């Protein structure tokens, strides 16, 4: 019988929740892998252009951690015998961990520790994960969740092969992304050779001549190389990634007060953002796009953008099921074991990547509605409460605002408005998005509304 159990302190609970929130920006379900010395949560997005993993150190992150694997499990899965994998809906997990973290108004019954237990028994059909929150005054909150057995895909990223690398505090990156339009899709990064690093957000939407005025703003932010802790980058080399992925990483890194290191080689090859803090190893492996020869056209020109999209911008090379578990590249990187999935289609950092595969999956992902619905309003909060002048959404105020989870980290919501859970909800419930925005605008405490409970798609 396979058994996993661990205990979280309240502080670790906050970090776990932050990680789950971040993961939820990439896909609906999370892969959970347990090993003897670590727990890994990872998500691969639907277009397989972004892979996010948080690796929690068994000793540093958890108060207690124990993992034993059943022999029959390993045999049955024909998988690596020292690892247990499963998959869960992020929303299910988030709904449990949400609001546990800052119950300021009820200090007496705040969570004191959280115990998680998983027993996998081959005889039992239903898989259950049990979570118990031991709170003050004898209050015990417990949950039973179902999970699905799964094989897990990992992105392959070979750090030793990256040529370019920079590292910078997350708060500086935060200062950059704040200027981007919420509807921007892509982020181009390059070094101008004059001591500046330039971050440009743009959108590759096809623009009809008449629709000029509907084009999103094109924003570029130049900061000094001095702001970086480390900056070893080929000048004028442009790489572009999805701006929302970048924002998700930055927002999370900021919760840890971390410094983010980016590593990449060249366009059409993956870029990895990584940071480590408080026993959590965070990695975002993102496919890049860009020009093979960056010198011929400056990227901030709209002309180029059109070319980029017209050219069927390069996609990640999809490697056919490389069930080769002894892949040397991967094996060389302990943190990134090779995929064991039969449908493994990893992002690749291996040699064959010199071909820019024109798979349409790299096109501006239609599966992600741009959150243009006025998150910009919350991005820049002026000193005075200018937002009281904005139009209030009557639908929003009509709602029965319950006191659910009024204790949820309001501060976080205000500091990272576009990254709060409301954002996650937005994806799945477009009609509600204005509600959420209006909520942000009005500065109402982030209570959960009945409509959200009803409108979560998955919960319906």
């Amino acid at each position, binding site marked *: 019988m396979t058994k996993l159990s661990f205990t979280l302190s309240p502080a670790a609970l906050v970090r776990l929740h932050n990680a789950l929130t971040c993961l939820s920006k990439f896909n609906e379900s999370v892969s959970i892998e347990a090993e003897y010395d670590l727990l890994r949560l990872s998500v691969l997005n639907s277009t397989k252009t972004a892979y996010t993993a948080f690796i929690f150190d068994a000793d540093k992150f958890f108060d207690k951690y124990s993992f034993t694997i059943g022999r029959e499990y390993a045999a049955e899965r024909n998988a690596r015998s020292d690892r247990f994998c499963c998959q869960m809906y992020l929303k299910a997990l988030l709904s449990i961990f949400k609001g546990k973290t800052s119950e300021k108004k009820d200090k007496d019954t705040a969570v004191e520790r959280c115990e998680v237990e998983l027993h996998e028994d081959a005889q039992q059909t239903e898989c259950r994960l049990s979570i118990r929150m031991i709170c003050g005054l004898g209050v015990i909150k417990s949950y039973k969740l179902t999970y699905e057995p799964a094989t897990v895909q990992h992105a392959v990223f070979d750090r030793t092969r990256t040529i370019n690398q920079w590292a910078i505090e997350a708060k500086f990156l935060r200062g950059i992304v704040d200027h981007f339009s919420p509807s921007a899709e892509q982020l181009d990064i390059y070094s101008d050779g004059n001591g500046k690093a330039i971050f440009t957000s743009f959108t590759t939407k096809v623009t009809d001549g008449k629709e000029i005025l509907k084009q999103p703003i094109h924003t570029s932010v130049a900061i000094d190389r001095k702001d970086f802790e480390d900056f070893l980058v080929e000048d004028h080399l442009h790489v572009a990634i999805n701006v929302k992925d970048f924002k998700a990483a930055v927002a999370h890194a900021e919760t840890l007060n971390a410094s983010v290191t980016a590593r990449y080689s060249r366009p059409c090859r993956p870029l990895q953002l990584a940071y480590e803090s408080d026993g959590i190893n965070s990695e975002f492996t993102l496919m890049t796009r860009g020009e093979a020869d960056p010198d011929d056209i400056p990227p901030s020109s709209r002309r180029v953008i059109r070319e980029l999209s017209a050219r069927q911008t390069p996609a990640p090379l999809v490697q056919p099921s490389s069930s080769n578990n002894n892949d040397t590249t991967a094996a060389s990187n302990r943190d990134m074991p090779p995929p064991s999935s039969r449908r493994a289609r990893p992002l690749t950092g291996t040699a064959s990547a010199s071909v820019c595969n024109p798979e349409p999956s790299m096109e501006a992902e239609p599966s992600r509605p741009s959150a243009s619905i006025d998150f910009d309003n919350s991005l820049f909060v002026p000193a005075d409460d200018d937002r009281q002048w904005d139009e209030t959404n009557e639908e929003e105020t009509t709602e029965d605002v*319950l006191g659910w989870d009024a204790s949820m980290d309001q501060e976080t919501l205000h500091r990272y408005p576009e990254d709060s859970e409301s954002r996650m909800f937005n994806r799945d419930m477009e009609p509600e998005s204005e509600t959420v925005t209006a909520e942000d605008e009005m500065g109402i405490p982030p209570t959960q509304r009945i409509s959200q*409970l009803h409108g979560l798609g998955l919960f319906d």
Partner: protein
Amino acid sequence: MDPIFSAVSSNVHQLYTLLQCIGFSPRATVQITPDGIRVSVEEGRVVQALAFLDKALFTSYTFRAPHGTIADNTGHSSEGNDNDGDAYPHFVISLSALLETLKIFGINDPSSTAQSRSTTSSMQQPTSSASNAFTAPSLLLDRSCTLQYLQPGSPLSITLSETGVKTTCELTTYEPEEDEADIPLQRDAIVMKIIMRSAWLHNAISELASTNPTILKISASAKREPFFALSGSGGPFSESTVEFSIDEQQQPQNGHVPPTTQTGHSRSKRTKMAPTVTETFLVNPPSSVGNRIKQDYRFALIRKAARAMAVANKVSIRGDRQGVLSLQFMIEFGDDASSGMSAGARAPGAALGSTVSFVDFRFVPLLDDDEVENDQADEEEED
């Protein structure tokens, strides 16, 4: 002509807070009595709520019982009987409109009790900048609200006055439905009575709500653990339970301990076991069901009381043999022990000492498959 009823409040916020607790229904039945105003709502005959605006909440309260001539259409139907000669005015109004009107005084949605209480107890700034007028809760105190009901059939009129602007709202009064009946709680057959801080119930229900259950299961036993547990089931991903157990652990980090919490040692000597959070814990299940009371309710219905749970100080949870659940909320104005606000600064017009108000909810139980003995009469319609 003198109106049948006229009352002035210098603290609209209190009225708003109480009415908002039962604001789940857009329409409410109002009955004006010499002691106060009864405002009740119900939905589908499976949930019912009543807020009583005691005359003590008003600085002046004048009620002239109308002559018997109108008794035939203003029967006190909450007694289920139109002919008992009860001539108190009785009508239906739009509750949502009443709440919205009271909000014109700029009451922000007090989703937290601390916030709502602080609004009643701070009065530092005078009316100064207008941009402030809607955010500074203290200003509410300078305003007055007059309720008036002229004669049978008149609208219920609400007048709000503040510097420079006067708002008058006339709410159309409708005749109440004929066949209104209370959900009966058998007071002589109470099998469970639990009193605790309302915030803890609110917290538990919020907790369960996050997993979106359809059914709330209440389980209580005076003999065995779990003594008192609320579970949500029917949700898409998970089942969740909030259990109120005995806190065996010493908690030196917590400065204060609730009155019922003695040391773990003395507690263990008690013959009747009670969760730490409860002030009163009485469970006497009928002998037919053993020593544990289990009852299911529609979660969505219980959730309608969430606002009351959030603002109330205490809740009394009672259940009768039939499984009818009563939640009685005690809402205290002015006494800010829990929010830490100074109770000294109070509205000049408000009564000294704290005003205690009550809001009642009643719920019809879900039919429990295992307990066929339950009366199945009118429970099926709700499923």
